């Protein structure tokens, strides 16, 4: 998909070649990725308010535009025109660096996420490792925000996030190990290609408990309810966000939502066959659905997981901090380690069509 686009640019502008062309093409790729991502993120906030409203027997936003569909834009403009307030004793450089450190890794991860057959920005051989590595850099943004604000609630939020995110990263790491053991590769493209051939070949069946563990850890990694103790409106006001306003806050917000979308994409890529149609190998149905592009399948599956985020948020009360820690170290970690052995046995004995 990209290659034909690059060729098109070269034929359209023949003198446009060499180093400059590469830079411009990279720029265009970046914008083509980030712009839809930000629009997705904006409408994710709309969907969140609407879905949670419906689950609470309310209607949700419905004033701006038809069905309130322009609400995200109203929010964006409000955020842009709001004043950015600096706490008088805060370290301004760190204070401004924190939202950038939260936002940049959230977007940078998307460089390796494949969105279709051969439709990606980079085909990195260690893409899953890259996702884990860059994903943990995002924690620095939150910790720095808490520290630089020079205020007690943000600091508490930062302390919570530091230990929580680090613990759950271990669990996610182990879950990824099971996926890698089955696929035999750390490349997301290969992992998805390995799941070709219908819904029965996807990894969610041999890794069913891991999928659930991954999803709950993903809730934790993205600071979403019921694990949103980092923000904890009712306990520590807004956690690390307390002192931030305007676009600085918007950057944190965008980082959180882009991370959510990334986690949904990762769950689909690792457990639900990525862009593969669920009807592959099924007579008739496979032929009927061949017209659906790869990207649409991926987006449909992702939107289910994004809906699950909202559904879970509307359902459960917030976990207490020590309960979150207990869940991580005493339940998930032993479970994942046991399942690593189970998967090891399954791969050795070659049970099922997955290995």
């Amino acid at each position: 998909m990209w290659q034909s686009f690059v060729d098109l640019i070269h034929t359209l502008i023949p003198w446009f070649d060499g180093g400059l062309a590469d830079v411009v093409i990279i720029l265009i790729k970046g914008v083509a990725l980030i712009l839809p991502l930000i629009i997705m993120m904006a409408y994710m906030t709309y969907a969140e308010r609407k879905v949670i409203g419906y689950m609470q027997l309310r209607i949700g936003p419905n004033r701006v535009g038809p069905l309130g569909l322009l609400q995200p834009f109203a929010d964006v403009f409000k955020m842009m025109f709001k004043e950015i307030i600096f706490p008088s004793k805060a370290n301004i450089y760190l204070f401004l660096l924190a939202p950038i450190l939260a936002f940049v890794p959230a977007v940078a991860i998307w460089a390796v996420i494949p969105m279709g057959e051969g439709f990606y920005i980079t085909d990195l051989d260690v893409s899953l490792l890259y996702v884990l590595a860059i994903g943990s850099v995002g924690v620095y943004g939150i910790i720095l925000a808490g520290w630089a604000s020079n205020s007690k609630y943000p600091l508490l939020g930062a302390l919570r996030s530091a230990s929580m995110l680090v613990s759950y990263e271990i669990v996610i790491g182990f879950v990824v190990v099971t996926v890698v053991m089955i696929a035999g590769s750390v490349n997301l493209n290969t992992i998805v290609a390995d799941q070709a051939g219908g819904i029965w070949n996807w990894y969610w069946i041999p890794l069913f408990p891991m999928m659930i563990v991954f999803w709950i850890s993903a809730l934790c990694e993205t600071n979403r309810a019921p694990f949103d103790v980092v923000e904890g409106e009712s306990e520590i006001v807004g956690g690390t966000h307390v002192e931030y306003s305007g676009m600085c806050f918007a950057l944190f917000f965008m980082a959180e939502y882009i991370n959510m979308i990334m986690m949904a994409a990762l769950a689909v890529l690792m457990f639900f066959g990525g862009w593969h149609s669920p009807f592959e190998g099924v007579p008739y149905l496979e032929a009927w659905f061949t017209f659906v592009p790869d990207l649409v399948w991926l987006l449909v599956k992702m939107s289910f997981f994004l809906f699950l985020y909202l559904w879970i948020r509307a359902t459960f009360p917030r976990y207490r901090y020590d309960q979150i820690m207990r869940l991580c170290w005493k339940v998930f970690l032993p479970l994942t380690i046991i399942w690593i052995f189970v998967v090891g046995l399954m791969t050795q004995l070659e049970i099922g069509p997955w290995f």
Partner: protein
Amino acid sequence: MIKKVKKLVKDFGLGDIRAGMKITAKQLVADKITVQFPEERTPISPRFRGLHALRRYPNGEERCIACKLCEAVCPANAITIESEMRDDGTRRTTQYDIDLFKCIFCGFCEEACPVDAIVETHIFDYAFESRESSIIDKKGLLAIGDENEKAISKARLEDSKYR
């Protein structure tokens, strides 16, 4: 022992989580109870006591005879009445002010009135732009009465069965 195993199965089968999510899923498709206020309104009892109004007889003559019973009964002293004899020999008010900041909307003025002149309408969504405008004078009260005469008489009729 069996109890423990049962609990273990329930916990690892996400029993409570599934039950909770089932409830929210049902709520998602249930009828919404929000009332879109300016466009939709909740039903109001005919006895509802809102903004005041002065009524007229069908021939256009104002009902109020300046008996000052409402002024006397008003527990908040919100009503001020001045009266004089009109050319045709009847007693009429020259001034009839209600201070809506003082008024507690008890409805005693309405109860006291022998000619059903002062009434409380169903209007409850009004606002003032300055402090002085909280006092409604006779002209304003009569205007409110003229504007809402249909609704006022309908509410009186509905309520008359129970009085």
